[in-house]
C-alpha cells in the first residue's frame, strides 16, 4: 500500500491518518512485540517464562513464586507444615484472584482479624503476642506472597518439629538453609520461601 490519498477535507484528514497509524502500531506493538518477547522467553529462559514451576515425583506441585495454603480443606492449620501468611486472594492463595484485603488502618474488621490471628498463633505455637512478627498476622498485597519472614519461620520450628517428631535443631537448620538474604544484601527484606521450605521438609522426613 503506497500513499493513496483519499479525497478528504483538512478536518477529516487527521482521522484517516490516525486510523492507519493505529492499525500499523497494533501490528508492531500489539502482535510482533509480545510474540518476539515470548519467543525469547521460551527459547532462552523457559523456566522463568513458564512460571518457575516446581516439579516433584508427583508432578507439578506449584510455582516457587506463588504462595500456597498449608491447611486442610476446611482451612484448619496442618501443624506439620510451615504456614504461609494470611491471604486475601479468594478463599486464600487463590492464584486466579490475586489481591489484598484493602482494609484501612482503623477498619474494625482488620483489627478483629489481626487479634484473631494472634490468638491462633499463640495457641498453636505457644508464642506471646510480642514475639509474633507483623507478616504472620497481616495479609499481603497480592494474596500470593510466597514468603514469610525468617522470624515467623523460626517461630514455627518447635511446632513443626514436634508434629513430625524431628529434632528442633534439624528443622531450624533447614529454615536457615532455605532463608534468602536481601537481594544484593540491601534490597527488600530477607525471606523464607514457604513452598521451598516445606518441600525440603518433606525430603527430610522421608530420609529419616
Amino acid at each position, binding site marked *: 500500500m503506497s500513499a493513496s490519498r483519499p479525497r478528504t477535507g483538512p478536518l477529516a484528514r487527521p482521522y484517516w491518518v*490516525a486510523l492507519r497509524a493505529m492499525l500499523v502500531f497494533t501490528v508492531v506493538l500489539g502482535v510482533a512485540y509480545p510474540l518476539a518477547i515470548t519467543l525469547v522467553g521460551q527459547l532462552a529462559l523457559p523456566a522463568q517464562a513458564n512460571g518457575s514451576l516446581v516439579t516433584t515425583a508427583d508432578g507439578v506441585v506449584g510455582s516457587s513464586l506463588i504462595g500456597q495454603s498449608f491447611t486442610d480443606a476446611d482451612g484448619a492449620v496442618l501443624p506439620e507444615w510451615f504456614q504461609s501468611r494470611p491471604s486475601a486472594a479468594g478463599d486464600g492463595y487463590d*492464584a486466579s484472584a490475586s489481591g489484598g484485603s484493602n482494609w484501612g488502618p482503623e477498619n474494625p474488621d482488620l483489627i478483629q482479624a489481626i487479634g484473631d490471628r494472634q490468638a491462633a498463633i499463640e495457641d498453636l505455637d505457644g508464642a506471646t503476642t510480642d514475639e509474633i512478627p507483623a507478616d504472620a498476622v497481616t495479609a499481603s498485597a497480592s494474596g500470593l506472597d510466597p514468603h514469610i519472614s525468617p522470624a515467623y519461620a523460626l517461630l514455627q520450628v518447635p511446632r513443626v518439629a514436634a508434629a513430625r517428631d524431628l529434632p528442633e535443631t534439624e528443622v531450624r537448620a533447614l529454615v536457615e538453609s532455605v532463608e534468602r538474604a536481601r537481594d544484593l544484601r540491601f534490597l527488600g527484606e530477607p525471606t523464607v520461601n514457604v513452598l521451598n521450605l516445606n518441600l525440603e521438609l518433606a525430603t527430610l522426613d522421608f530420609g529419616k
Partner: protein
Amino acid sequence: MSVWLGILQALTLVAVIGGLYRPLGDYMATIYTSHKDLAIERGFYRLIGVDARGQQTWSAYLRGVLAFSLVGVLFVYTIQRAQAVLPYSLGFDAVPAGLSFNTAVSFVTNTNWQSYSPDVTLGYTVQIVGLAVQNFVSSAVGLAVAIALVRGLMLRRSGTIGNFWVDLTRGVLRLLLPLAVIAAIVLLAGGVIQNFTGFTEVNTLTGASQSIPGGPVASQEAIKELGTNGGGFFNANSSHPFENPSGWTSLFEIVLMLAIPFSLPRTFGTMVGDKKQGYTILATMATIFVISLTALTLFELRAAGAAPALAGGAMEGKETRFGIIGSTLFATTTTLTSTGAVNSMHDSYTALGGMMPMLNMMLGEVAPGGTGSGLYGMLILAVIAVFVAGLLVGRTPEYLGKKIGPREIKLASLYILVTPTLVLAGTALSFAIPAVRADVEATSIWNPGLHGLSEVLYAFTSAANNNGSAFAGLTANTPWFNTALGVAMVLGRFLPMVFVLALAGSFAAQDRVPATAGTLPTNRPQFVGLLLGVTIIITALTYFPVLALGPLAEGLQ
C-alpha cells in the same frame, strides 16, 4: 537499620538515574531534533500517508493528538466489546459497555485506572492488542506534547511547532520500543512470566488444587513501567509475584518508571541550548521526590493507627520480599510519576502514609511526572513562578527570552485549574447528589468512616491526574464511577494538552528578547527555591481543606 537500608536503596537509585540523565536526555533531544528519518520510518510514513517534512501549527498538532486519541478510544472500546469472539480470551465474555468505555479512556489517557479485576475480566488478546499498544502510544503522545512545548521555547518567529506524526513515530520506534525490549528480557530473567498457556492446574503439597495463571506478562510489564502507564496484567499489579518477583526486579521497575521523566529536563536543557535550565528543573523535581519519599517511609515505619500498632508493623497489604522500604519507594515513584502501578496496597497504608501518594498526585505529578506530562507540567509551573517573581519586582516577566503576557499567563492558569476542579467537583458530587451518595456509600466504599471519603478522593485525584493507582477497596465498577472517572480522565488529560500546545504556539511565534540585568535568571538555585515554593503553595492552598476531612483527620484522631 531499616532507615539506613532505605538510604542505601535511594542512593543506588540516584546513582542509576543520575548516570542515565545525560546520555538518555541527550539521546531524546537527538530523536526529536534530527532531520533524518530511518528507512523503517519512511516506510511507516508512506503507509499512514504523512509527509514527514510537513510542519504543523499548534492547532494542527493538537488536531493530530485528539484524532489519534479518539481513534485509540474507539479501537480499545471495540476490541473489549468483541472479546467473546477473539482468540486467547480464556473464556471471558465481552466486557460490559460502561466498563469498556472507562477502560478504553483510561489506557488512552495514560491513566490505566482499572475498574475491573483483570484476572477475571480480560483475555490475552485484549491485553496485548488493545491495552499494551496504548501503553506505548499514549506515552509517546505525552512525550510529543512536551517536546512541542520545548520547541515553542526554542523557536523564534515560527508559525509551526513540529509534526505530531513524526514525533509520535520517533518516540515509539526510537525510544520506547527498543527500551521495552531490553526491559522485558531483564524482567524475564528475573522471573516475570511470558507465555500463552492459560491456567495450569496443579496439585499442591497438601493435595489441594491451585490454578496458576499464565500470560504474556513481561512484554506488558516492561512498557507499563517505562511508559508510566501502570495498568497491571493481574489485579494485584506489581505486587503479584509474576509481575514483580523479587527485591531487585522491584528496584528495576522503579528505574524504568523514572528513567525517561527524570531525563527529560536534560532533553529540555539541550534543546533550548542552556543545560543549566535543565538542571534547575531536575533539582526541583528531585527535591520534592526526596522529601516525599522520606515522609512516606517514616510514616510507614512508625506504623501509627490501631491495626498497624496491634500487628507490630504496617505490613497489611505489603509483600514480605519488598518490606516497608521497598514498598514506600515504589509508592512514591508510582504517584510522583503518572504510573499508578503498585507493589503494595495503598488503601491499607497508615492514615498519614496513605495521604502521601494522594499529595504526590495533587502536586500535579511533576516530580518527575509522567513521560512528557511531567516536563510540561513543571514548565507550566516555571511560567507561573516567573510571573509571580515579575509581579514582586514590577517587571514584565520572561522565561527563556519569551514574554509572559496576558495570553500566556491565562493559558498557564487554566492549565493549573483543570485538575483541582475535576478532583474537588468529582469528590463533592459523589456525596452531594443524593442518589449517587446512596450508591457510593452502599456499593463502592469499602472502609468505614473517614477512610471511605479518602477512597473517593483518591479515586478522583488519580483519574484527573491520569495516575491510575487507587485506594483499591473502592468498588469503582459502577455506572457513577465508570462515567465520572472516565470524564475526569479525558478532561484531565486533554484540556491541559490544549493549553500546553496553545502556549507552545504562542511562544514559538515570539522573538526571543535578550536577557538584561533585570531579567530573573531561571538557571540558578534561587529559581529552584521559587519553583518549589510556587508548586507547594498552589497545591497546599487547593487541597488542604479536603485533605483535612479525610486522611489528616484520620491520622490525627
